[in-house]
């Protein structure tokens, strides 16, 4: 079995060197090299064709960028995934916020690792994505699910009752809320599901799998 070839991208030389020392000790991995900013990472990755690229999310796109930022990291991931679809991308960051997880995954990252991961955790994640898997924490999975499913808990309850054919007043009585509030929830549901009527909202919700 050929070793997993790795390229690491970070603006910190110390971090890259530490990472290199650790990963060179893994027998099934091959350290291909490193890049310090986004554009350089794309060039090197396309030239070297590694299996896995480890990218720091807070990155500069090129030398002209003033300070590292998440948007440039996402841009790097997107460009890289567009140019070399065979490369598996693993993002790494000090502080993961929901929106950056969602954006990184949407851009093409197969995993989002916290920076304080241990060398073992990093190696495991690399192996996982190299085999075509994903490396996400349960919390990140919930974030991703939430970003797909925009409904609040109350809206889901309303939706379930709506699907049973209940009127606003009946929904309000059952949930113990005001009729006006129930109507507002139904209105929000229609907006979120881009439906013209309450029935269309139910059909749309079924289609998206929000209700069985």
């Amino acid at each position, binding site marked *: 079995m050929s070793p997993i070839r790795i390229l690491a991208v970070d603006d910190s030389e110390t971090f890259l060197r*530490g990472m290199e*020392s650790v990963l060179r*000790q893994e027998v099934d991995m091959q350290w291909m090299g490193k890049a310090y900013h986004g554009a350089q990472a794309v060039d090197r990755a396309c030239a070297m064709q590694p299996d896995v690229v480890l990218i720091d999310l807070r990155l500069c796109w090129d030398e002209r960028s003033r300070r590292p930022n998440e948007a440039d990291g996402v841009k790097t991931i997107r460009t890289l995934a567009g140019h070399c679809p065979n490369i598996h991308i693993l993002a790494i960051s000090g502080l993961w*916020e929901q*929106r950056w997880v969602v954006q990184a995954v949407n851009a093409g990252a197969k995993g989002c690792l916290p920076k304080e991961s241990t*060398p073992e955790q990093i190696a495991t994640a690399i192996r996982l994505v190299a085999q075509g898997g994903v490396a996400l924490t349960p919390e990140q999975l919930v974030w991703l699910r939430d970003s797909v499913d925009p409904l609040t808990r109350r809206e889901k309850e309303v939706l379930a009752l709506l699907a049973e054919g209940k009127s606003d007043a009946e929904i309000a009585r059952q949930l113990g809320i*005001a009729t006006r509030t129930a109507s507002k929830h139904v209105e929000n549901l229609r907006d979120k599901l881009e439906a013209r009527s309450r029935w269309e909202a139910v059909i749309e919700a079924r289609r998206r799998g929000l209700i069985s």
Partner: protein
Amino acid sequence: MNRYHLFQKSIQSHLMLIYSIWAVILVILGTGALVQVIAQIGGNYGGFIWTHDPTRNSPFYVSFDLWRSLPPVPNELRFLDEIVTIDGRSPWEFDQVYAAKRPDDLVTYLVRRGHQELLIREHVRVFTLDKFIVSYGILYLTGLSYILGGWVLLHATRRKDLKIFSFAFLVGGGAWLSHSGIWGVHTPYYEKAVFNLLLYTPAMPMTGAILLHFACHYPIPKRRMLSWPFVPWIFYVLAVITIAGYTLTRDHTFAAWNRFFLVTMFVYVMMGMVVFIMINMGIYLTTKSSGNVSQQRILEPMLVASIVGIIIFVFLGMLPVLLFKYPLVPFEIWITLIMLFPPIMVYALRNSELIEQIHREASLREQYAVQVEELRNIRERTLHEVADALHDQVVPELRGLHFAAVALRRRMRGEATPALSKELAFISDTLDTVSKDVRAIMEGAKPVDWTQTSLSQALLWLGNGLSQRNRRVQVRLDVDRYDNVDGPLVKEALYWIARAALNNVQDHARATEVQLTLKSDDDHVVLEIVDDGVGFDVEAYMTSPASDRRHLGLTNMHLRAIEIGGRITITSRPGAGVQITVVVPRKET
């Protein structure tokens, strides 16, 4: 606020005071008229018997004196002749309305009604135009002064109850003018003087109705009683009907209707006054119980004026009417002035000092708020910069060194002495811990983008952060993931309260367990932080001088809660842990 503005405000406040006295006087004057009108409706309403003597080259009419007991204005209508008796009975015993333009017509009319004997006494007083102007001028000036007072009050204050007061003035002015207008029609000059018809007849009731319209349509939220939109229209219609009817037919029924709607208008004005007094009384009692001395003192003169006015109205206005059918109108005015001036002068002086003080305090508060906001912005910016610097410069270096140390440890495995292995383990573990600590600090310092982050998410970070930093504390999180808390300000405030509370738990509480709960329903969001630590005496803490307090950030928590319209309760006893509960009402969706 500079000295000029202060002076202006002070003048304004004094103007308001002067007008409040004036208001009482005018209300009493108005009450006199109201009493007259009521007396006419309920009492011996007989009406005029009009006539005209062609032998004299001046307009006159014969009348029995309907308003003999109702001074002062009606008595100014001097008549040339007066019917003394009809068939030996006083005209007062008749309750019909007779109207005629010439004596012949009147006699014909009375004969047709079956009367035999008509005793007529010659009057000596002649009603002339200048007397008319003087007597009616008083009425019009009263109406105009009402309106002027109303406008001044309306522009001098932002307080809603005072605005109602000023509407009462405006409406009252309209009513007065209307009142005067319809009386103007009664004058013997109505046929001669075209301007009477043009000015007094239609103009005044219409002015009244228009003013009323303005007053009713002026937006006074939650004071619907005084701003029913259909009220002025009723008065418009009534004004038009009575004016047209009276001008065309000279039928006194129209005049009676006019009086009826005048009474309604006066009642309306009185309602405004009563609402004003009740509101002020309410505010006064509230401020009294809350110990707000300055506001209390500003309200006092207004209340004194109102209450004295009512007393005078009842005892000097109503009682004489009830007992002797004679209101003591001019006397009341002088009594009012004499009784009101000394206390009002004293209050006015105190008021000016207080107003100065209040404005000084208000401007200081304003400056303070601006500075606090500025400091807050600086703090947020600094935190942001610190967090960025930690994230970009410190954490990667520390992680890199940690990885290098781990790699070195692995490489030396089997080769290094036990002592060297131990040292290497120490280095790599310390680097790991330090980088995690820095990350935790950074997490706390980093301002959160509340438009993108849910409160439950942020609370999970906080809880997890604490349990990572402090292994001795077990953090239990009962956080509604779909908390549905909207509004960045609410999220931010609750987040900082929770953060401050958890910091206290970490630094002071010596707790083994802390429970963080976030619950929300349609009406409220409830955040609760309960620990089992050493606790403290809340009351002693709050009453102790600021320099003696341990820095627990309780004031900040309170301020944060108040900022978002919430309520915070801190319960604790030494040895019994701390429970902090914040309840924030949810805005109507």
